[in-house]
């Protein structure tokens, strides 16, 4: 497709500067339009569900501890290699016990791979995005910090935290069969594979 150019201006338009006047009229009109500015610190942006912000370890309501089972999947997948877990095997139960769980948040690239692969929904990137600090140490998260982050996030979200679903825990449009048991959460109908949004033309065909 060849581009169509607008016609060249004629002499009268040149003398009257009509195209410049049009532009001026437009900016003048915008002078009275409503500004789109958001006065940020006072007016927080609306954070969408599933935002990949500060890290947190979900506190298990029953035990009060982290849900992590030290499967090392998050460590394995992390592309920036910022998660470090130390654990030991509990001989009696045959399960792993987490000794330390550290995230170097300054190395993190917030890809969300860790919460995606976590089989038990233990790790989450919360919707908190303001946690800048003046020193590196305060953005190095150990297990206590991560659990505290979760508490802060829970307080921010309020009562709804029990039913909090991160799309990374239960991705929209993924069938239940491919998810681990802990990830098979109840989600809005729209998120299931049956409740998908389809296009108008497809709708008519059906």
């Amino acid at each position, binding site marked *: 497709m060849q581009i169509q150019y607008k016609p060249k201006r004629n002499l009268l338009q040149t003398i009257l500067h009509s195209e*410049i006047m049009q*532009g*001026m009229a*437009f*900016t*003048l009109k*915008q*002078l*009275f*339009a*409503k*500004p*789109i*500015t958001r*006065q940020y610190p006072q007016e927080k942006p609306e954070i969408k569900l599933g935002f990949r912000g500060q890290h947190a370890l979900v506190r298990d309501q029953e035990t009060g501890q982290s849900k992590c089972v030290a499967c090392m999947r998050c460590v394995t997948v992390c592309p920036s290699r910022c998660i470090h877990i130390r654990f030991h095997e509990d001989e009696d139960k045959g399960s792993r016990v987490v000794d330390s769980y550290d995230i170097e948040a300054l190395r993190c690239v917030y890809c969300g791979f860790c919460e995606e692969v976590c089989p038990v929904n233990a790790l989450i990137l919360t919707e908190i995005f303001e946690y800048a600090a003046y020193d590196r140490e305060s953005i190095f998260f150990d297990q206590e910090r991560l659990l505290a982050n979760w508490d802060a996030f829970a307080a921010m979200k309020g009562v709804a935290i029990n039913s909090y679903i991160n799309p990374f825990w239960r991705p929209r449009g993924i069938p239940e069969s491919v998810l681990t048991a802990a990830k098979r959460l109840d989600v809005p109908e729209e998120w299931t594979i049956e409740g998908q949004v389809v296009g108008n033309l497809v709708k008519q065909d059906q």
Partner: protein
Amino acid sequence: MHVLILLIEILILFAIIMLHVAYATYFERKIIGHMQVRMGPMRVGWHGLLQPIADGIKSFFKEDIVPEQADVVTFRAAPIICLTAMLTSLAVLPFAKGWVLADINIGLLFIFAMSSLASYGVILAGWASNSKYTFLGGLRSMAQVISYEVAMGLSLVGVMMLSGTLNLTKIVEAQGGSFAGMYVFPQIIAFFVFFISMLAETNRVPFDLPEAETELVSGYCTEYSGMRYAIFFMAEYIGMMVMSSIGTICFLGGWNGPFEVAVFPPFWFVVKVYLFMFVFIWIRATLPRYRYDQLMSIGWKVLIPLALGNIVLTGFIKAFTG
């Protein structure tokens, strides 16, 4: 005693002008902000009203950096030259009948002289900083001022011919109190030329080449910081105001308006000046920037011939109508 009164008058004018400069920046930022669907300054004071004050305080306390390779004396003097020249030209501006510091007979010429002098500040700043960007900015400014000074001077010749004087007060009086008497109607070509040259003289968009930000970083004041930078800024805004005032005096009938405002005689003058300033800002919000050679060719090939033609035309009309 007379000198004392004069000094007090100067001080008052100086204070008012400085306040004006401060709030002209605020005015500009607000207008441009809203034209760009944002808000402009909002933080300091109610709707950012104290922002200019905060800016002033900030620039006073910022470090005054002098580049190692700079010519220190000239580098320090350049902003002062700019500001002094601009401030001096305020002396002959009649804000209302009798509201003028020095009612001299060659007011118009005096203002031209001063605004040309101010460009020395810019050129010296560009040279003395010993940086390539500032140097280019200085060169551009020099070329620009030389070409547009001519066009502007010629455009005002028509006004001089009609009024028969160079005294600014008398030019206003020659236009009479009525709306139809304003020289903008008989001198429409001159007004057009004057307006374009005015933009170029004050380095405003679309002729802001000496400080074209995306090309020369900040042009002639790239190396300046703190108060010295602020002085350039002040000079620019005073320059805008002086040019607007000349426009008001020569073409829009000065302080005359539809009705008298007894409490504050310069009311209409201020309104008209701010109208000019608004158009300055409005243009800045709308137009792209010319290239250096295009700017020169407009100056020499369009504006100067137009202004000369206008003189001839005015002369003919004057000769035939008496």
